[in-house]
């Protein structure tokens, strides 16, 4: 087991990792930018090193600074969290060459799954269902039109180096496909440094179902069930839950077995998430694989009772997986609301500033993963998520009730947050009935806006 680990991240996930390390008796090193010097993760770690000024590319994305900090504090491993360098294969390689264990999959796995075209092709060859579409990178508009004719409209153009909902365009006919193609190439080049595109059939009104997987370095792998992340706004998740309200044992076994098969076939180790789209007829298709711990991991932890960060560290340290698939059960229901410092009334404008008043919800079934405290200064340099509010109950209906109660107790002032928005979503009959698809939120906003005018 590692004796000392450096956490190359900030905010709530850095704190989450420090907590797991403490329970495993591992010494922790926090790194921080100048503006984060009063952060909780800095205070809770055993050691802390300032690595740069506020700007992410000079601090949390600054590989030499982080490696240097790892060397002077003499750590054995680095946990990259999510975002920042978590899916940077170059960083994983540098750690390896410096004899520091990167707590995550191999650089090769990260690279493979980071190239969305290669990932898709790899999955298809293994026998994982993928959305109908082209086989590789599309050469030109002519090829795009040919593929679209075969798979039928609507289609979606995606950037090969993209992911996370960025750089995608839906096209309903030849005219829009032709006009979108070269623009999409330019956008892809600008955003990801790579103009390559691929094309898929656009699944109308799908649910976003993702499977949590865990694999060791000896070829053992399990899945820990699914999460339903259909409540999204512009491809950014707002609310996640486990299990999915429409999942049954048979479908879970089918999808879970495929997820494990994919993991074993690609020699993957660590935690990961395989994202699927589930259409209204019950067909599911591979969308992408995330080779990191995810923001919404707590809902899986609540229903399975398994600490995913600890498992991640154990596996990275070379431990054999002790979990067996048939002993992993999903009990009860968990829901997570991502609380962002944004003003929903002003088109989600970020709301940085000092937190003057703060009251966290509590009680039976409530978990808050956060880095904020009274007097904390939310800086404008990083993402706006300030807390994750997670609830757990025996039934989904009970979980919704607890979440409503908890959101009501959650008081933050004077900064604006998305707490009122979550309360409204939870009251909506579509959500209550478990019928929300990825279009729900946009439809919901449209009707809410119409109601106001």
């Amino acid at each position: 087991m590692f004796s000392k680990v450096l956490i190359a991240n900030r905010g709530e996930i850095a704190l989450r990792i420090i907590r797991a390390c403490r329970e495993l008796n591992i010494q922790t090193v926090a790194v921080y930018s100048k503006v984060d010097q009063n952060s909780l993760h800095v205070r809770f770690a055993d050691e802390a090193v300032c690595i740069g000024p506020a700007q992410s590319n000079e601090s949390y994305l600054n590989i030499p600074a982080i490696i240097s900090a790892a060397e002077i504090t003499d750590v054995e491993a680095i946990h990259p969290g999510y975002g920042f360098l978590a899916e940077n294969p170059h960083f994983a390689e540098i750690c390896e060459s410096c004899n520091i264990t990167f707590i995550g999959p191999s650089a090769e796995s990260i690279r493979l799954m980071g190239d969305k075209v290669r990932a898709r092709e790899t999955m298809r060859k293994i026998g994982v269902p993928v959305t109908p579409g082209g086989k590789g990178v599309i050469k030109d508009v002519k090829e795009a039109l040919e593929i679209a004719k075969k798979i039928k409209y609507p289609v979606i153009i995606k950037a090969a180096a993209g992911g996370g909902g960025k750089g995608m365009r839906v096209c309903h006919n030849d005219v829009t496909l032709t006009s979108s193609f070269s623009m999409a190439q330019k956008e892809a080049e600008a955003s990801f440094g790579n103009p390559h595109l691929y094309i898929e059939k656009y699944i109308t009104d799908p649910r976003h179902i993702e499977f949590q997987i865990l694999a060791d370095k000896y070829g053992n792998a399990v899945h820990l069930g699914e999460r339903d992340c259909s409540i999204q706004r512009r491809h950014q998740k707002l609310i996640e839950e486990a299990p999915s309200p429409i999942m049954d044992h048979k479908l879970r076994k089918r999808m879970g077995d495929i997820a494990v098969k994919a993991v074993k076939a690609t020699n993957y180790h660590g935690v990961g998430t395989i994202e699927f789209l589930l259409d209204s007829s019950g067909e599911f298709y591979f969308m992408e694989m995330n080779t990191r711990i995810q923001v919404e991991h707590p809902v899986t932890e609540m229903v399975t009772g398994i600490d995913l960060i600890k498992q991640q560290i154990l596996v990275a340290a070379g431990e054999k997986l002790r979990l067996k698939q048939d002993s992993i059960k999903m009990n009860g229901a968990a829901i997570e609301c991502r609380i962002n410092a944004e003003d929903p009334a002003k088109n989600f404008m970020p709301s940085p500033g000092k937190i003057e008043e703060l009251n966290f919800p509590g009680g039976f079934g409530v978990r808050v993963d956060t880095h904020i405290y009274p007097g904390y200064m939310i800086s404008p340099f990083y993402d706006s998520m300030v807390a994750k509010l997670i609830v757990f109950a025996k039934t989904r209906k009970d979980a919704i009730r607890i979440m409503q109660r908890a959101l009501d107790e959650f008081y933050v002032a004077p900064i604006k947050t998305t707490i009122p928005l979550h309360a409204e979503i939870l009251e909506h009959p579509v959500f209550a009935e478990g019928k929300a698809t990825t279009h729900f939120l946009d439809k919901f906003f449209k009707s809410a806006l119409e109601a106001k005018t």
Partner: protein
Amino acid sequence: MNLKEIKEIISLMNENELAEIEIEREGGKIKIKKTMDASSAAVGPPAVAQPYRVETQAAPPAAPAEKASPATSENTKSITSPMVGTFYRSPSPESPPFVDMGQIIEVGQVVCIVEAMKLMNEIKSEFKGKIVQIPVDNAEPVEFGQPLFIIEPV
């Protein structure tokens, strides 16, 4: 020592993350200590709002100015580390240090090396002045923004 000077010292303490400072000058001695006020309304973790406790005492007259313990005062500047790494006073273990206490240095003069990932980075002074303090030891690890040399500009 007037209120303006005290306020400046407190702000410098904040910038350099110091908990306590004691300064003895001709005409007085002052000690400023950051404390945790147990009655503070902050519910969260410690050290959110930290009140300062200022103690002054009349010093014996004509006491010589003591060297300020790790602190800067209003007429000094710090050369801070621009990166994380290990601080070295000399270009190599056998060589003499680049600069020494009391030395007058020029703008652009190499004052030390900060080694990061096996690369030796020469650190140059932005100021012209006299080195009055070197708060870091040779071969000590340093972080971004850490003061390496305290200079009295000339």
